């Protein structure tokens, strides 16, 4: 198994939403379904998000960010930000 860097991989927003019922350290939670240029899809929280700047087709890239913290344990995972 070869290590594969996942940072800075680009894709396009297939659809998106603002989840006003869920918690995030960076509210409000903006979620986007992202289709990668090289194939594949995942649903991410959007970092540094301005929901009004998002649309279907908006270009984004992966960034490693803090997803949540509990009992002093920080859980980092992939998010995307607008390119």
């Amino acid at each position: 198994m070869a290590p594969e860097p996942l940072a800075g991989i680009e894709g396009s927003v297939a659809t998106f939403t603002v989840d006003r019922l869920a918690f995030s350290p960076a509210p409000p939670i903006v979620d986007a379904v992202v289709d990668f240029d090289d194939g594949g899809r995942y649903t991410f929280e959007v970092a540094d998000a301005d929901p009004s700047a998002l649309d279907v087709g908006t270009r984004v890239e992966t960034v490693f960010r803090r997803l949540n913290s509990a009992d002093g344990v920080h859980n980092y995972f992939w998010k995307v930000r607008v390119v």
Partner: protein
Amino acid sequence: MSSRGIRNKVAVVAMGCTSFGEHWGRGAEDLIVEATEELYASNPRISREDIDAYWLATLGSGQSGLTLSKPLALDYKPVTRVENYCASGSEAFRSACYAVASGAYDRVMAVGVEKLKDSGYSGLLRGDPPSDGTAAELSLTAPAAFSLLDPAYCARYGVDGAEFRKAMTHVAWKNHYNGARNPKAQFRSEVSKEKIESAPLVAGRLGVFDCSGVSDGAACALIVRAEDAHRYTDTPMYVKGLSLAAGPARGATDPDFDYTTFPEVVHSSRDAYAQAGISDPRGQISFAEVHDCFTPTELVLMEDLGFSERGQAWKDVLAGDYDLGGRLPVNPDGGLKSFGHPVGASGLRMLYEAWLQFRGEAGDRQLEDPRLALTHNLGGRPGSCVSFVSVVGRDRE
């Protein structure tokens, strides 16, 4: 997908349904007793001792057959508890129908119940295994997951966002209009379009009135062989088709899924239509009860069920096609919008409206001469769901 179906082999001869709402003073056991008592009270030809077997649906208001046998004080009868997400009530009905059709039992009862309001939580409480929150499809709440349909649909079909907003509003307005005419609904008042569109936002563009409510309730049906039906009632309801489709659940990671359709609904409706001998659903179905968990869901369902052409449902909704007086009334009882969604009960609540409509007992909501009805019950979310479709009819042939 192929299935032989059990068209006209079994019939519903009695039903019961509690009012749906915030029943702070009643537990799941009380609701089960109330629904079944209504069933017996409505049909003196049926007694408790007549029932040979039971199927019970509940997502989380109890486990095992004891959840039913204890409150009903059953003596050693077979009771199976089923769960299939929000389609659980329909699954109990489907199983009960097959049990009768197989010849194993003469009289089987399907019961659905859910008690949501005592959970201390304002939505559907799920017992998922602990996770770190990184799974693609579980990271969104239910309203957020269904709100994904809105931008995707508008982009795919080039629909102006303001027009689609009007269509979502019309769905909520219509279902509350219908629910205002239903004494068993949780919400029994009409809601103006202005109020719907100015409500606080929940997820994406979905406001409070774009979401179904949270309520407690129970409903039940007694199923017998079709040839025996007239021993119990002069107005039975015949089962024409029953279909269930569980999808591959890969929408959240599969770029081929575009968030404008539920393929599971397409599969299950086509299968149910084939079983029921329906070639033109839009022309043949008199009315439909569908899973309007959120307003864009109902819009997409109109296309997946074959009622509207692709990309046209929003226009048909705005034209009033699915209104109470329209060409194909949808959710004449008020739907999940007006009833809330006590998970295990909802699928049977939909069938209860078909039962009332066929018997001419739907009061102010009564449709003229309904012959065939469809019920549709969805569990899960776009890209990852199970879908149930039934076709039931007033006449055996």
